[in-house]
């Protein structure tokens, strides 16, 4: 069976058959599926907007309207079906940082996104895909087995070739959503503070945001020694360094960056998990989903 092998070497799955790998991984995760973003069966207020002709007067937010001279209507959504959007970071840093024996972050991102999307679709939810590629990869949320294949095919075609920051990608993706959704962000988090800030803002606006941060060995420490030239995958900037002298400082700075990112990704409706690309993927995802299911509702 290809599943276990592909879980150990998901970068091979990206080449051979991402769909198979995703299904195998989803099957392993099924008992720990995610918690629905919107609990309860009734309609839920999503937001307030200006009154439009034809709106039911029962929807008018009289309290809000009393504070001004215009009428406002409550916008409600049907929460009987979860809408999810998978946002995949395709910046160039996703292609580097791996080591011999470990897949690239982009490979892990593809498998993770495909597995979670498969899991959501199999439970009847709708799933969309956004990636800041050129041209833009945007697949509106939909359900069904066929849509699942469309998503997996699109994921298989993603390459870490862009230079768009995850925060900007997330902001753009959220603009496509018309209702509260489960937003799955998959990135390595090498961005400025706006990344966590954007995620917190999305959670504050009603979305259930889950951030999957991929960490490769190269993100934790320098994987080379001696006199080298380090090239920034995002900017192309090159710095000549003595890796021997830099190693401890680099590791400390990387750890500090990770800690700061973890602190920034805390908040209501905001869930974050770190996935080590050098470690087996399934156990990490399973632990996260179990913990997520046990999390109290926001």
């Amino acid at each position, binding site marked *: 069976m290809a599943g276990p092998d592909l879980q150990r070497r998901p970068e091979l799955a990206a080449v051979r058959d991402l769909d198979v790998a995703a299904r195998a991984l989803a099957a392993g995760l099924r008992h720990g599926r995610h918690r629905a973003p919107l609990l309860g069966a009734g309609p839920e207020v999503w937001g307030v907007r200006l009154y439009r002709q034809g709106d039911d007067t029962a929807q008018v937010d009289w309290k809000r309207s009393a504070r001004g001279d215009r009428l406002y209507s409550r916008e409600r959504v049907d929460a009987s079906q979860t809408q999810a959007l998978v946002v995949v970071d395709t910046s160039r840093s996703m292609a580097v940082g791996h080591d011999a024996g470990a897949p690239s972050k982009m490979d892990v991102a593809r498998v993770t996104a495909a597995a979670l999307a498969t899991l959501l679709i199999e439970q009847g939810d709708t799933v969309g895909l956004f990636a800041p590629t050129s041209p833009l990869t945007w697949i509106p949320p939909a359900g069904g087995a066929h849509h699942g294949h469309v998503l997996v095919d699109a994921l298989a075609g993603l390459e870490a070739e862009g230079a768009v920051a995850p925060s900007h990608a997330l902001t753009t993706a959220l603009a496509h959503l018309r209702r509260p959704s489960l937003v799955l962000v998959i990135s*390595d988090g*090498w961005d400025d503070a706006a990344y966590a800030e954007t995620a917190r803002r999305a959670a504050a606006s009603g979305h259930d945001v889950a951030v999957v941060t991929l960490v*490769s060995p190269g993100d934790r420490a*320098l994987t080379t*020694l001696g006199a080298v*030239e380090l090239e920034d*995958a995002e900017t192309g900037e090159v710095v000549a360094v003595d890796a021997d002298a830099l190693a401890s*400082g680099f590791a400390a700075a990387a750890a500090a960056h990770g800690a700061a990112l973890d602190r920034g990704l805390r908040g209501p409706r905001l869930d974050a998990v770190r996935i080590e690309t050098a470690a087996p993927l399934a156990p990490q995802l399973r632990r996260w989903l179990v913990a997520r299911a046990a999390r109290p509702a926001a």
Partner: protein
Amino acid sequence: MTLQWLTPWALAGLALLAVPIAIHLVGRPPRRRVVVPSLRPVAATVPRLARRRAVRDPWLLALRLGLLGAAVVAAAGPLVVSASRRAGWASRVVRAIVVDGGAAARGALEARATAARDGALASEVVVAEPLDAGVGRAVAWLAQQPPARREIVFVGDGRWGSLSPTVRDVVPAAIGLRLARVEPTTPAADSRLWRGADSDGRPRAARVAVATTADGRTSTTTTPVELPVIPLTLESAGADRAWLAAVREAVLGEGWFLREPPTWQAIALRWPGAPVADEALRALDDADRSRLVPLAVAMLDGAAAEATAVPTAPIAPTAPWSALGGGLSAVRTGESLIVRFEAAPTPATVESAVRAALAVAVGQDDTPRADGGAWDAAFVAAFERPADAAADGTGTGDEPRDARWLWLVVAVGVIVESTARRRIDTGRGAAAEGAS
């Protein structure tokens, strides 16, 4: 105890210490390019990185600096001057021997010069005429010798004007001066080749042979090489032979026979108490006679010279006597020259005096020998001085022992540096391979 440098200019090589420092500071080894997700951790570490680069391989740098410094110091020739070493230098002597190339007694001079080499750590013979001309070479040679007392020995016949007393002031005070006088001998027969130039500047030469007959007559024959024969006959009583030989040496030594008119002149020497050389004068043809300069040499003191003047041309001096130094004076009257001695001279003094007198006679009294003195007792006492016993070790040195240890350290250091460099390179290569 002091430290001296045998080649101090080599210390300028310490500037080379900047080379390894520059290599360790700005030198960049070949680098591999590694793509990292972000340079943000690197940027956070830049200050520490800069400090680390400043002391890259500090032990290797220290080793290289030490190696280079030791090599430069060794090349500069360090010399630890201890009391015992200084005493050792003072106990030995290096000697430059300046031999008078114009003196007649060459054999005796050479023997004396050879003898002067005895006991010297190093010696050098310089032949010069006059002796003054060899002083520069002697001082230069002494400056190149190992630490020791230094002295110059002048070997000559001590004739008038062969050594200027001003030499004493020219030679560095630390260098001792000694005079080694060799009594001139009268050869039974002598033959010299004189050289000169004619009025057109063409070289001319003549061989002048001087012979002394058994009865005390001295005859000179000049073998024409390119010159006409100039006869010269000197007559004297037997008792005056030594003086007469000195006069002959003076005349020949000055090369009068090769000088073109008006300075090229035949000379007749008249000698008190001796037959006048009328026969010789008669043997001359009219042309030669017209160029004759009668020269009277009065070997008497004071007024007696005037009283016993040349019989054929009584001397009636109208000009004051010219002081020639060394108790010698001269006066020219008509075509005659009278040389007067204040005391009975030695033959060497006679020769020097006649040389000076001849220079006056032909209007060439600016000859550099005119101010020289004969090597009499007063001259010797004023001229000689001992070598400075406090030898300071200057010179190229013959004691490289102090530098040998440094060279040994350098050799060992080179091996250590090579080994350390290989280990560092090997370690880096293995680490890089392991990391990649």
